[in-house]
Each structure stands twice: as structure tokens, then as C-alpha cells.
């Protein structure tokens, strides 16, 4: 098993920590993982993205040019990464602020209104967890118990009280994700 994922959005949307929790969850499941952020001069408000690879075998390069799954949180990232999903792969996106929706018909496209849902849940900080839940619904690459372990490992001790809230968000993502596949349309 090998899953190559890009997660991309604005800085501040929790892109990097979503990737980290996912990676830690996989570690809990005895997988090999790599987590590679885009890094650059600190020019906030720019895009942030992270490549996460989960695999049963040793991972060669954490820097990839095409992906099994793209998790997209803003328009710029959609524009950049839609074309980099492998045929047959998954594109999961948050609809907030998206003006041009994805159009490829050789991939599976899922939509999650996570930003909206998060503000409805009155905890915008959990948006990324809702997205994570959506991803895990679409691709159950790690088991929920390991996700919770991963969450615990990746959050600093003083934030452990937030775990239940995050768990709820993940579950919510599970529920509300929906397919908008244009595949072979």
C-alpha cells in the first residue's frame, strides 16, 4: 500500500497540521510516512502545502510531482494541483471561495463544505479536521483508533483537551463529504 497525498490551501488553514496528524496516524499503524512542506520565506497569506506519503515500504522521495489524492482548500491550490492528480485518483476540495470548480473527468472528485460547517459548529479551527474526516471516508488508509492516537501524539500536551472536539469534527467530515464525480462523464 502506498498513498501519495498533497494538501494545499492558505497559510493558517491548518494544512500542515492536518498533514502531520494524518502522518502520525499512519505511524501508529506501523506505516512508513513522509511529510514534506512547501517552505519559503515567511510571506504569510501565501499558499501553504504539504506532501504526505503513507506506505508499507521505505519511501524514496517525499517530493512528488503527481499524487493519488489532492486535498485542496483554496482556488489557487486547485488551479495548481488539479492537473497533478494521477488519473483515477482523488481530488477532495473545500468549496469555500472556489469560483472555478474542478473539471477533470478522469479522477474522482469529492467536495466538502468544511469551512461552512466549521463556522456552523462555531470552531473555525477544526475546519482542517473536518476535511481530514472527509478524506478518511473516501480513503480509509488509517483506522480511526490510530487517528486518535496520532492526534494525541501530534498535539502538545496542553492542547489534549481539544481532542474530543477534533474527533467530533473528523466524524462530521465523514458524514458530510459528497462525491461530485465527473469521471467518464
Amino acid at each position, binding site marked *: 500500500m502506498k498513498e501519495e497525498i498533497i494538501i494545499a490551501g492558505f497559510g493558517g488553514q491548518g494544512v500542515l497540521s492536518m498533514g502531520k496528524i494524518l502522518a502520525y496516524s499512519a505511524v501508529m499503524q506501523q506505516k512508513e510516512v513522509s511529510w514534506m512542506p512547501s517552505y519559503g*520565506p*515567511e*510571506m*504569510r*497569506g*501565501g499558499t501553504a502545502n504539504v506532501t504526505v506519503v503513507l506506505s508499507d515500504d521505505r519511501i524514496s522521495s517525499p517530493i512528488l510531482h503527481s499524487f493519488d489524492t489532492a486535498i485542496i482548500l483554496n482556488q489557487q491550490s486547485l488551479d495548481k494541483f488539479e492537473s497533478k492528480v494521477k488519473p483515477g485518483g482523488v481530488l477532495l476540495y473545500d468549496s469555500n471561495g472556489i469560483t472555478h470548480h474542478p473539471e477533470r473527468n478522469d479522477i474522482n472528485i469529492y467536495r466538502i463544505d468544511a469551512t461552512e460547517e466549521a463556522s456552523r459548529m462555531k470552531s473555525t479551527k477544526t475546519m482542517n479536521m473536518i476535511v481530514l474526516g472527509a478524506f478518511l471516508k473516501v480513503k480509509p488508509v488509517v483506522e480511526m483508533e490510530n487517528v486518535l492516537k496520532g492526534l494525541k501524539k501530534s498535539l502538545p500536551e496542553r492542547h489534549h483537551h481539544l481532542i474530543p472536539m477534533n474527533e467530533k469534527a473528523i466524524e462530521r467530515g465523514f458524514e458530510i463529504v459528497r462525491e461530485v464525480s465527473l469521471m467518464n462523464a
Partner: protein
Amino acid sequence: MEENSMAEVFNDIKKPENLVYSKSKVLTDNVMHYCPGCSHGVVHRILAEVIEELGVQDKTIGVAPVGCSVLMYNYIDIDWQEAAHGRAPAVGTAINRLWPEKIVFTYQGDGDLAAIGTAETIHACNRGENMIMLFINNGIYGMTGGQMAPTTLKGMKSSTCPFGREPAQDGNPLKITELLAQLPGTSLVTRQAVHTPAAVRKTKKALLKAFENQKQKKGTSVIEVVSTCNSGWKMTPVESNKWMAENMFPFYPLGDFKDE
């Protein structure tokens, strides 16, 4: 006023003769890469305005630092050299000596000017190189992600003093501008800010003065601008300005140290 007359009034006002402020022609069309609200943008703007107003676009050579403003050559439409981290004063020295009829300015952050570049800064000022040194003191290493700068205040947090600067561990904040004022080579040494319209106007005036000094070959003009780095400080731009006025100004008081 009604909706309708409103539009009419607008059209009436929006005429060239009523133009009070528009973007300087010495600024390029490139969108600045800075974070929203970053002081660098304001300083760039007035710098361009001064160059335009004095009509010296064709004879001004800028020296950019390594820091958030490393790419400032994309924004101000003059000839530029991008110097190694801390070495802008050395780079500027040579340009000034080899092209004495040009106007040379350096632009540096606090890490660039007051940490790695301390020797070059002090010696260029001490030699009295005929150039303008612009010093953007935001109390942090903006570009590399918010590490402690030589000017980070006591107790102030940064990624390399995450619990606040402790002088015994991290050293004291450095008031380098005060030192530069004592060197015989400097003619104008002033500390300004750009957090309010009035402050911006004062800084611009200081800049105009510095450019004038160049023509008169008065030696080195040093203009420190106490600035914000809202990303590094982890505040909004508006909060940053407030925090700066409350915390930075007492330690880095604004005003002229030298004007000869």
C-alpha cells in the same frame, strides 16, 4: 445626499486636477510579496515618492538587503543591487566611491544591519560614506520566520526566544542608531515610524532631507524606521501598530539624534 447625486459628485471630484494622492510612478506594477500590513510596503512607497518628487530616478542606485525586503528591486523602478546578508553598507560604499555623482541608498532590516552586518554598518558610517542608510527595525527576523533580532525587546517573544527574550540568556536589545549618531561620519541620524499618517509624513520628510544631504555630500544619513512585522509578532497589523507604540517606542524613542 442621494444615490444619484452621489455618483455625480464622484464623477465631479474624480478629475486629474483634484488628485491628491496616487501611486508613485517610480513604483512598479508588481504586487508586493509582503504580508498584509507590513511596514516595508509603506517605507517602499514613500521612498519611491521621494525619488519621484526629487526627479532622481535616473541617478539613484538602491542596495537591497537579505531579509523580507530582499526582492524590493521588483517594486521600485530604479537600478538595484541585492547585497549579501549584512553587507549592504560595503556594497553601497563602493558604488558611492566609484560613482560619486549618483545617489546611493541602502535598505536593511535589523538582523541585516545590526547583527551580521554590524561591522560594515559602523565602518561605513564612521568613514562617512556619502549615502543614505535606511534601517527597518521590526525587532525580528521577518524573512526567516520570526527569530530573535538584535533589537528584539526584553521579554518579547520570537521563535528563538519563545518564552520572551531574557538578557542573561539571549543578550540585550541593541540601540545601534544611538551608536551611529556618535560617529563623525554621520550627518543626519533619526528614528522614525510609519504607523500613523503623521508619522509617515515625518519619515518622508526625513527621507527628503537625507536625499538633499546626498547632493551636498554631507556624509552618511541614517534613518531608522521602527516598524512592525505582524506575522513575526503574531498580531494583526492594527494590533501591531498599537503594540509598537506602547512597547517599542519607549525603548526606541523617535526623534532626531543628529542633524548637521
